[in-house]
C-alpha cells in the first residue's frame, strides 16, 4: 500500500500550496515554507520505500510502481525542490533586467503538477495514462514559461513553446493511434506481445511518429529548434526546471516505451536511436560554441546532454535504466548548481558571459562553484558528471555500439571547449570596474556549497551508487 502513498501526497500537495494562498497575504513566505516541507517530506518518504527488485507493484491494473519508477520519482522530486529553492529570489526582486515574478504559490503548484505528470508517465502501463502523464507534465510548463506577463521575450518564448509543443503532442497522438491500430489494445503488455509476434508497417509508422513527437520534448535533432529560444525567454528558474524535469520526463517516456512495449524490436530501432543521439549531441555542442548569453548557452548544453542520454537506450534494460537514473541525478545537481550561480550573478548583473568577468578575483567561492559545475557537465573526473557519462557510454558499449560511443566521446572535446570558455570568462578575464563584488545571502551560500559538495562526491563515493541502486539486479 505504501507504494502509492507518495503519489497521492504529491497529487494533493499542489492544491494545499495553492490553497494556502487563501489564508495568507501575497507577500508572505508561508506557501514557500509549506512547499519546502511537503517536497522534502515526499522525497524522504520515497527513500523509505523498499525497492521491489525488478517486478513492479500494480494498482487498479494500470498504475505500476517499479524500481525505475521510484528512482525516477526521486529524481523528479529533487528537481522540484531545487527548482522551488531557485525560484524564491525571483519573487523578491527583479533579475536580469526583467520584471520580478508574482504568485509564488501558483508557481510552485505548477511545478508540482509538472512533477506529478512525470510520475504518471513512469507509472503508466497503458497508452491513455501514458499520454495523460505526458500532457500533465507539459501543460504547466507552458504556463510557467509565460509566467512573467509583462515580459516581452517571455510571452514570445511561451508562444513558440506551446505551438511547437502542441504539434509534438499531435505527432505523438498520431503515433499512438497507429500503435493502437497495430496492437488492437492500449495496454502495454498486449502491445508488447503483439510486437513480439511480429512487426508490421503500422508499427514502424507508429515508432517513427512517436520518436519524432518525443524528439520535441527531449530536444533531439532536428526538433530542438524551440529549446534555445524558450530557455532564453523563460524566467531562469523555469529554464532550470525545463532543462531537468521535462527532460527527465521525456527520457522516462522513452525508457518506458523502449524497454516496455517496444522491447522486442529494440535491436531494429537501435540505429535510429544511435543516429538521433549522435546528431543531437553533435549539433548541441556545435550550437553552444559561440554563445554569449548564459541561458541560451545552457539550452544548447542541455541539448547535447539529451544526445548523451540517448546513447544509454542502446543498452540492455537494467544497465540502461541504472545509467539514465544515475545520470539524471548527476545532471540535475550539476545543472542546478550552474543555474544557482547564474541566478546569483543575474540578481546583480545581466545574465551574459561578460558579467562573469573577474569572478575569481571578487568572489572566489562562486568562481570555484561555477568551475565545478562546468567541469562536471563537461564530464571531467573526479566530478560526478564524468561517472554519469561513463555509465551512459558503458550502457551503450555493452551491446557493442563502439562507434557511437567513440563519436560521443570525441564530442566531449568540443563540449570541454565551450565549458572552458565559460570558465575562462570567470577565471582569466580581468574584472572591469563597474562590476561590484556580489554579496551572497545565507540561503544562496548554503545551497551552493551543498550542491558543490554533492557534485564533487556524488561521483566517486562508492556507497552512494551502491545503495541507491542496490535494487537493480545485475
Amino acid at each position, binding site marked *: 500500500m505504501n507504494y502509492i502513498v507518495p503519489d497521492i501526497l504529491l497529487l494533493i500537495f499542489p492544491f494545499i500550496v495553492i490553497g494556502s494562498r487563501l489564508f495568507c497575504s501575497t507577500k508572505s513566505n508561508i506557501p514557500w515554507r509549506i512547499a519546502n516541507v511537503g517536497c522534502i517530506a515526499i522525497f524522504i518518504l520515497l527513500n523509505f520505500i523498499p525497492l521491489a527488485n525488478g517486478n513492479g507493484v500494480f494498482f487498479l491494473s494500470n498504475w505500476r510502481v517499479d524500481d525505475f519508477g521510484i528512482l525516477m520519482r526521486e529524481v523528479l522530486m529533487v528537481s522540484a525542490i531545487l527548482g522551488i529553492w531557485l525560484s524564491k529570489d525571483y519573487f523578491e526582486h527583479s533579475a536580469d533586467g526583467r520584471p520580478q515574478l508574482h504568485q509564488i504559490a501558483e508557481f510552485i503548484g505548477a511545478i508540482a503538477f509538472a512533477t506529478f505528470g512525470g510520475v504518471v508517465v513512469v507509472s503508466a502501463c497503458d497508452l*491513455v495514462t501514458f499520454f495523460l502523464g505526458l500532457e500533465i507534465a507539459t501543460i504547466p510548463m507552458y504556463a510557467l514559461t509565460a509566467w512573467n506577463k509583462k515580459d*516581452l521575450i517571455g510571452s514570445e518564448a*511561451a*508562444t513558440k513553446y506551446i505551438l511547437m509543443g502542441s504539434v509534438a503532442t*499531435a505527432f505523438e497522438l*498520431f503515433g499512438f493511434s497507429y500503435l493502437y491500430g497495430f496492437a488492437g489494445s492500449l495496454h502495454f503488455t498486449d502491445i508488447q506481445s503483439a510486437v513480439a509476434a511480429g512487426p508490421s508497417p503500422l508499427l514502424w509508422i507508429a515508432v517513427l511518429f512517436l520518436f519524432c513527437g518525443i524528439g520535441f520534448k527531449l530536444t533531439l535533432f532536428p526538433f530542438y529548434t524551440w529549446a534555445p529560444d524558450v530557455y532564453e525567454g523563460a524566467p531562469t528558474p523555469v529554464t532550470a526546471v525545463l532543462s531537468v524535469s521535462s527532460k527527465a520526463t521525456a527520457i522516462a517516456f522513452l525508457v518506458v516505451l523502449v524497454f516496455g512495449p517496444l522491447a522486442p524490436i529494440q535491436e531494429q530501432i537501435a540505429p535510429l536511436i544511435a543516429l538521433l543521439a549522435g546528431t543531437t549531441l553533435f549539433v548541441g555542442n556545435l550550437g553552444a560554441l559561440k554563445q554569449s548569453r548564459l541561458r541560451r548557452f545552457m539550452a544548447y548544453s542541455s541539448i547535447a546532454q539529451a544526445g548523451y542520454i540517448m546513447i544509454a537506450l542502446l543498452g540492455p534494460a537494467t544497465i540502461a535504466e541504472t545509467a539514465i537514473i544515475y545520470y539524471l541525478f548527476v545532471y540535475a545537481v550539476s545543472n542546478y548548481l550552474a543555474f544557482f550561480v547564474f541566478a546569483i550573478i543575474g540578481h546583480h548583473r545581466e545574465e551574459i558571459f561578460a558579467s562573469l568577468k573577474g569572478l575569481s578575483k571578487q568572489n572566489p567561492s562562486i568562481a570555484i562553484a561555477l568551475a565545478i559545475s562546468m567541469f562536471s557537465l563537461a564530464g571531467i573526473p573526479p566530478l560526478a558528471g564524468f561517472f554519469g557519462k561513463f555509465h551512459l557510454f558503458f550502457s551503450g558499449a555493452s551491446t557493442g555500439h563502439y562507434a557511437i560511443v567513440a563519436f560521443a566521446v570525441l564530442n566531449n572535446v568540443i563540449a570541454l571547449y565551450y565549458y572552458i570558455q565559460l570558465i575562462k570568462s570567470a577565471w582569466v578575464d580581468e574584472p572591469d570596474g563597474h562590476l561590484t563584488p556580489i554579496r551572497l545571502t545565507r540561503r544562496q551560500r548554503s545551497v551552493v556549497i551543498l550542491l558543490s559538495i554533492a557534485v564533487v562526491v556524488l561521483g566517486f563515493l562508492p556507497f552512494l551508487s551502491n545503495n541507491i541502486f542496490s535494487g537493480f539486479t545485475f
Partner: protein
Amino acid sequence: MNLMNCLILAFILFGIGVWGLIRRRHLVGMLISIELMLNAANINFISFAYFTAHDSTAGAIFSIFVFAVTACEMAIALAIIVNMYRRHHSLDVDQLRELHD
C-alpha cells in the same frame, strides 16, 4: 467504407494540418491547423476501434480523453496568445523574432 479509406482520410487531414501550420502566418490559424492534426489522430483511433481492435471501447475512450486534453491545451494557448497580443499588438508570427542567435 473500409479501414484503409478512413486511414487515408485521417492522413490527408493530418497533412492539411501540417500544411496550414507552415503556411499560416496568423497564430490562431496555426492553432486551428493543430486542431486538425489532433482530430486526424482521433479519426484513426475511432476507425481502428471500429474495424480491427479487439477491445473497441479503448479507442473511443482515448479520443474522448484527447478532446479533454486538447481543450486545456488550447485554453492555455489562447491565454498565452492574448498576452502575446497585449505585448506585441499583433498576432503575426513574423513578429516573433526577438529570440534568436
